[in-house]
Each structure stands twice: as C-alpha cells, then as structure tokens.
C-alpha cells in the first residue's frame, strides 16, 4: 500500500509541477523540504527511541557496522564499471555516475559540472530511478532475502526518504543501521565522484 501511495504522490507532484499552479500550501511544502525532512527524522527518531534494548544490539555489531556501506559502495562501483563497458564510456565516468548511490541532486549537479550536461543528466536520472525504485524493491527484498539487504538499493538515501519504507518492512535495528549507512554513503558520494573522474 505504501508503495502505491508513494507512486501516487510522485505522479501528483509531477502533475503539479507541470501545471505551473502555485497553491500556497503546496508551494510552501515543496520549497521547505528541509523542514519536512527534519520532521521525518524526528519522527523516525521517536520510533527508534521507543524500541527497548536496540543500542545494546547495535554495539554488538562493532566494526561489522561498515559491512553494509562497504557492500553498497563496492556493488555500485562495479556496476558503474560494467555500464561503462556496455556504453563504451571511460571507466572512471561510469563509476562516477554509479557513485551517486541514489543521491540524484548532488550526483547530477556535480557530474554536470565535471563531465558535461549529458553525463550529468544520466547521473541525475539513474540516481533518481534508484531512489524511486527503492520504494518498490525494499518490500520485495525484505521478503525474499533479509532485512539488512533492504538497505542496499536505497544506498545514500537510506538515512532519509527511503527510511519510512525501511521502518514499515523491516525492524528498528535495521532502521538504525540504515541511518548509519546513509550517513557513511553520503559522506563518500562526493569523494568517490571526484576520485572516479580523476581515474582514466
């Protein structure tokens, strides 16, 4: 159900944007997404805080907390290299596009500046698709694979927009790992994009 709502919200948003209408309330929200994001994070924090004994469990992971971001970064980079080979692009450019890990605004803007508007558009669209399709993929992965793996499609977005889906289909422990993963991946996105572009 949440997936349907999500798709509906996206379509309504697209229609609103295309229509050129300026309804005060909707315009206010669409121009103050940072406030909505803070509200969302506060609400997610409440959910996490209500779960007793959670942080003891997280402490038990110790260094293994880096396993998920490491896997996501590795998978994304290798995927970018494969795509580069398919489309006959320099390997560094392919890896840079995939290094966005769902952070479409940053990846699109940065790659546009470094590699031109066409490459920037591919980075923007592919990372946008990663975020949107995550809403559909996460519930399937939760059923077919395991809760931890639900964090993988979300990549760098696992700390914000895809978090409520995570909360709905996994558990509080995975949600905390998801936030940590999002922070780590987001930290590495600009670094990886720059590094990949300096690689031939």
């Amino acid at each position, binding site marked *: 159900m949440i997936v349907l*709502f*999500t798709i509906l919200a996206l379509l*309504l*948003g697209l*229609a*609103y*944007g*295309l229509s050129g209408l300026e309804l005060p309330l*909707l315009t206010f*929200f*669409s121009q103050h*997404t940072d406030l*909505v*994001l*803070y*509200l*969302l*994070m506060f*609400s*997610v924090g*409440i*959910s*996490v*805080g*209500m779960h007793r004994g959670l942080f003891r469990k997280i402490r038990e992971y110790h260094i293994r907390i880096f396993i*998920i971001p490491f*896997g996501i970064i*590795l*998978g*994304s*980079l*290798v*995927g*970018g290299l494969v*795509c580069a080979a*398919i*489309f006959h692009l320099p390997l560094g450019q*392919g890896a840079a*596009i*995939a290094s966005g*890990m769902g952070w479409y605004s940053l990846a699109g803007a940065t790659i546009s500046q470094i590699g031109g508007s066409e490459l920037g558009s*591919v980075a923007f*669209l*592919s*990372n946008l*698709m990663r975020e949107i*399709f995550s809403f559909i*993929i996460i519930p399937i992965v939760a059923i077919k694979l*395991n*809760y*931890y*793996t639900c964090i*993988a*499609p979300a*990549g760098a977005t696992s700390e914000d*927009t895809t978090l*409520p889906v995570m*909360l709905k289909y*996994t*558990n509080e422990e995975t949600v905390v790992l998801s936030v940590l993963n999002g922070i780590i991946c987001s930290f590495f996105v600009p670094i990886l994009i720059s590094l990949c572009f300096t690689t031939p």
Partner: protein
Amino acid sequence: MDILLVMCLGILVGRFLFPQKAKRWNEGASLLCTLVLIFSMGAMLGRKEGFFHQLLTLGAQSFLFFLIPTVLSIVVVYILTKRFMKHPNQDEKEEEA
C-alpha cells in the same frame, strides 16, 4: 549532521517522553512526511525544464546505470550480511503484522 542531531532528539523523546499508545500516530506522521517529500520531488522535476525530453532520450542508458549498480549492491550486501552478520528476528516483525 543536522539530520543526525534531530534524529537523536527524536530518540530521546521516544525513549523518555513519548507515550506508547501514540505509536500509530507517529508512524502516520512518518508516512505523511515521506509522501510530502516525494510529492515535492515530483513537483521539482515537473518544473525542471526539459525533464521529460531528457527522460526520453537518455532513459534507457540511465535505467541500466540504475539497474546494474543497484542489483550488484544487493547481491554483494546479501552475500556479506549472510556471511558476517547475525540475522534480525524477522519473525518478530511478522508477528507484529
């Protein structure tokens, strides 16, 4: 970093102040915020000049640039977590549902 601080504040509220019976309201608030964010993203894209043209011309290439890295991330994380991490009790969630 701000996001992390706000979340920490939420954790404290959830741990010490928030009533258990309001849990459903909080879940509703999370969902509502998400939908507003997604709506805003759609509105932003709808306003972006040439977005649909970009989607048509670079769509297939972008789709593969989304699909292959995402699938490989899933595969690598699945293998690593299966090998190195304890599995959260999925039955717990199923019971809750």
